[in-house]
């Protein structure tokens, strides 16, 4: 066994991520961050002190055993690292890419007290990518429980819940309104941050677990949540329909042509492939000079997509300062490198149009930070007489979303004041047997939180159905033929027993 590591003996510098050159990447949709090599990963794994305290595990919304998986990497046991992660996190290749690690695991890393924190997210992605490349699947032995579970929405919340319920032996069907599964991962987050192939692989893994995806299905309208229970034979239902319903500001000029929501821009570009117009039929009409309002992840994606669609100038307009910007630090950094122009402490007051009802500019006013508001952030207040105009031909709104109304319109679900689905602490809704989680419960949040909610709801659903996890492995009968079909009963302790 090697000597105990100390802060002085570990590699001091955080291993940089190989990236596409900013000038080149700002014009293509290929992934920006290329991923760690074996050597990079080993170097970075060495930086973990394996401290007994494990603040990172508590910092992770789903509690991945981070020191353990990093240790496995250091031991060159990559499959072992994958096993550790997938014990808690279904989507390492996704979360390694899009989690706001600086506020979670990396934000509390012990190494980070003195040096730059261990690059946990990059290591997680390294493991996830290797699993995809090598085609690893941890397919547990599943004892059919005879229960049927319906899941509404195929975003990270729905995917996580589906996986857990399938592993518990349930027959799982996921309903999705779009023609492809994946939720925001597919239609929102662009390929240069999260390639669609990564999501497709994860969806395929779910299929191998026996999960069925039914696309083109608008639940609420084609059938209701209540009907799923009463007529369609589902013993439990999970709702993970995400947020949606983008906000506008209500300032003059918002219906001018050239004003659109970031969700529309991103959906047209990513899911409908308008970037390949006219080979794909969906048009986009990207702007030449684009102003994006907001500074969250969605705004950063809209800015960077606009650049890649060929805009000459792309501007970020945000009423607070950089410190308050909700986007991940890395995304703001990347956007800046690619040439996005930031207008901090700037608030739009009117979208200006020409005679043809097209956008010609955005009138803004300067702001300064006043007293802290309810969120604890300093409230921006207008600077009198500071109005000015930004010349642009497209204005993209990325200032947040409201609750999607469809299920509220069609089911007797209890909603909160803001229209989101109300649940108890176990994520049960007001309808017996119906659970909900992800953005439709919390409002817009993060991928890992949605996934965590999906898993939490799965635990509650198992309890509701009387399914209990056990450590008893049905290993005695491991028929040879079954193994040939990929079943390895001893692979994982996932056997399930039904209790009365």
């Amino acid at each position, binding site marked *: 066994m090697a000597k105990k590591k100390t802060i002085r003996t570990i590699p001091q510098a955080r291993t940089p991520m190989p990236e596409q050159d900013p000038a080149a990447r700002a014009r293509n949709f290929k992934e920006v961050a290329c991923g760690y090599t074996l050597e990079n990963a080993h170097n970075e794994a060495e930086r973990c002190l394996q401290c007994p305290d494990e603040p990172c595990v508590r910092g992770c919304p789903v509690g991945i055993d981070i020191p353990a998986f990093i240790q496995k990497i250091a031991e060159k046991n990559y499959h072992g690292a994958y096993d550790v992660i997938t014990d808690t996190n279904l989507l390492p290749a996704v979360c390694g890419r899009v989690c706001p690690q600086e506020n979670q695991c990396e934000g509390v890393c012990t190494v980070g007290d003195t040096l730059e924190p261990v690059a946990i997210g990059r290591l997680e992605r390294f493991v996830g990518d290797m699993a995809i490349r090598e085609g690893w699947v941890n397919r547990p032995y599943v004892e059919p429980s005879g229960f049927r579970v319906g899941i509404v929405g195929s975003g990270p919340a729905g995917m996580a819940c589906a996986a857990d319920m399938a592993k518990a032996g349930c027959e799982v069907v996921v309903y999705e309104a779009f023609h492809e599964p994946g939720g925001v991962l597919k239609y929102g987050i662009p390929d240069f941050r999260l390639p669609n192939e990564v999501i497709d692989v994860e969806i395929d893994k779910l299929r191998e677990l026996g999960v069925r995806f039914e696309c*083109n299905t608008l639940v609420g309208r084609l059938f209701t949540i209540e009907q799923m229970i009463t007529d369609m034979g589902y013993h439990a239902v999970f709702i993970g329909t995400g947020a949606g*319903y983008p906000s506008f500001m209500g300032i003059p000029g918002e219906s001018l042509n050239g004003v659109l929501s970031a*969700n529309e821009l991103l959906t047209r570009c990513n899911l*409908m492939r308008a970037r390949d117009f006219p080979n794909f*039929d969906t048009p986009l009409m990207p702007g030449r000079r684009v102003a994006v309002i907001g500074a969250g992840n969605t705004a950063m994606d809209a800015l960077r997509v606009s650049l890649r669609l060929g805009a000459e100038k792309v501007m970020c307009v945000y009423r607070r300062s950089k410190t308050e910007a909700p986007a991940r630090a890395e995304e703001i950094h990347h956007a800046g490198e690619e040439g996005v122009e930031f207008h901090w402490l700037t608030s739009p007051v009117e979208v200006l149009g020409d005679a043809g009802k097209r956008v010609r500019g955005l009138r803004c006013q300067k702001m300064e930070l006043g007293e802290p508001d309810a969120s604890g952030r300093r409230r921006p207040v207008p600077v009198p007489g500071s109005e000015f105009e930004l010349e642009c031909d497209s204005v993209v709104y990325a200032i947040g979303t409201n609750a999607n109304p469809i299920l509220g*319109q069609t089911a007797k679900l209890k909603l909160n004041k803001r229209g989101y689905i109300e649940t108890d602490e176990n994520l049960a809704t007001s309808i017996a047997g119906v659970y909900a989680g992800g953005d439709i419960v919390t409002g817009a949040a993060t991928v890992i939180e949605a996934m965590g909610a999906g898993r939490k709801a799965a635990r509650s659903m198992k309890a509701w159905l009387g399914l209990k996890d056990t450590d008893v492995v049905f290993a005695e009968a491991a028929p040879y033929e079954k193994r040939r079909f990929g079943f390895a009963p001893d692979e994982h302790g996932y056997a399930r027993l039904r209790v009365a």
Partner: protein
Amino acid sequence: MGEDGGGAFEIVTREDYSDVTYMLEVRHPQMAKAAQAGQFVIVMEHEHGERIPLTIADFDPERGTVTLVVQAVGKTTKEMQQRCREGTTLYAVVGPMGIPSHIGGAKKVLCVGGGLGVAPVYPQARAYARSGAKVIGVLGFRNKDVMFWEDRFRAVCDELIVCTDDGSAGIKGLVTKGMEQALAAHPDIDECVAIGPPVMMKACAEVTRPRGIRTIVSLNPVMVDGTGMCGGCRVKIADGIKFACVDGPDFDAHQVDFDDLMARLARFKPAEAEAMKKWEESCRMKGGDASAAERY
């Protein structure tokens, strides 16, 4: 339902009503049961296609089908006109979408349909008739040759007024003329539904506004998802913004800002023209001209 959207929506009947208008009856038993008047679907003809909204013009739970009536106006609708045949399939059909029309209470209802609005107003007329209301239909066509569904409307309307641009059938003039005629004969009309191109709906709203008759229009902004996620379909209603796909598509005609709707419909004009041109060229390359590409 088409695992991953994979082209499982079969067209069981196709009928052509004119050189630009065609009817597709699509197999979808679950939707045929769920659909109600005023709702629509979103269709993708093929994997690279655009998602386009089309009103459910009829639905038959027994046959397990929904019926769409389409006007070929641009790339997607013309391509569908060429390719969709009995026995072919659509890549994606999702719905029923939108809030069903509110049918109730009215005793005498005027149902007005013009152009691509004729078929969509049919389920509403039928629903009103079933609710016990007297229904007076006003339909507008270019001329006698492009007329369709007169029989279906006669079966549910107590009175039917046909208007044509050239007077070759019914009265000569726009639907607003037919409305004036109906309103003169029936001063007790207490509700009106008007569906058609935005200019028409705007004109209809002005006919009923001075009379204070509650008037419903079905708006047709450009849509993407149809689930309230993108806001592309936003329309101005009174002072507020609504999303037609989840808050509509039916709205109070006297509150709608039609100019705003018309301006926003022109949003993708240049791109639409480009798509059309490229497609027509590819048709020419495949054989003769765009219309001869039928063989394809």
